[in-house]
């Protein structure tokens, strides 16, 4: 009886912890050259419950937007989007060739070795917002779409 209670308490604790925990892995920002005023941030986001990435913030840029790259025939188009759906338990990739966080009007050149602080704002179905703070390392400009991601595209 006691054991069962402890077990269910544990389960409740774990699930409530998981409920609030949106995880971000492998974040990175593409390096820039001097006077290049914008760049992209990429990462993998997993939300344990249905949610939506609604906003991204960073002190590194004056404007931060969530963009989607789409191909129409052989034409590349980039558009700001209102949000990115995060289905429960599904890892959503922000990667070259898809969604990315656009850092516009950078305050300084972004160099390899730097880390860029980012805040990802995820909204649950109940309208509650959760901030996920992260530091994204800077990868070289010629980072071949992460190398691995490049292969995943094919």
């Amino acid at each position, binding site marked *: 009886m006691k054991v069962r209670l402890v077990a269910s308490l544990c389960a409740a604790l774990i699930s409530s912890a998981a409920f609030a925990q949106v995880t971000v892995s492998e974040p990175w920002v*593409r*390096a820039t*050259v*001097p*006077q*290049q*005023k*914008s*760049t*992209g941030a990429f990462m993998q986001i997993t939300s344990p419950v249905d949610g939506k990435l609604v906003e991204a913030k960073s002190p590194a840029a*004056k*404007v931060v*937007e969530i*963009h989607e*790259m789409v*191909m129409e025939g*052989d*034409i*590349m*188009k*980039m*558009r*700001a989007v209102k949000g990115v759906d995060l289905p429960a338990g599904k890892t959503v990739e922000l990667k*070259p*060739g898809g969604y*990315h966080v*656009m850092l*516009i*009007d950078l305050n300084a050149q972004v160099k390899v070795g730097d880390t860029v602080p980012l805040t990802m704002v995820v909204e649950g179905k109940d309208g509650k917002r959760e901030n996920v703070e992260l530091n994204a390392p800077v990868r*070289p*400009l*010629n*980072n*071949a*779409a992460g190398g691995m991601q*490049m292969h995943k*595209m*094919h």
Partner: protein
Amino acid sequence: MPFAVLRLRSLVLRALLVLFAALSLGACNDDELRFNNTDITGANFGHDFSLLDPEGNTRTLADFRGKVVMMFFGFTQCPDICPTALSRAVEVRRLLGVDAERLQVIFVSVDPERDRPEVLKAYTAAFDPAFLGLHASLEDTRKVADAFRVFYRKVPTGASYSMDHTATSYVFDPQGSLRLAVAYQSPAESVAADVRTLLQSASPLP
């Protein structure tokens, strides 16, 4: 009816001749080069360009005779497709080994307002110092893009603007003729193989 037989004979003969001609043409086609990417040999567009390098010198295709030229239109504020295409070009050069110096990679800006020469130079050099960034006035940029059937358009995105643009790379043979259209998702290996084919098929320079 000997006349009718004669006519029939000549018809058969003609049919055979046509068939033979078709077969030999087919054989001819088999002798032609085979590419992984889209063969646009003989295209009635993209014959040449006249653009400025970061130092302000006018560059045309004739400057690169003897080299395969791979040309991509893009802009430096592009977070996604342009770095991907240029990174692929880096990989293509790596795969070419000693032949890498016989491939000239050219990045043409479709955003000359923001891509000042110094930005363009630093940007292409960040991928490979051998890459060349070319630009022109707004008006001339449009002319060159039209000549290569490249689409681009300024699109406001919230606080700034982005450029929609054609993501295809073009490849010229060492004689300066447009030969291939390379889709953005074409892997580096397939591009490198095609560049090699063009280098090998090129007659030695006089």
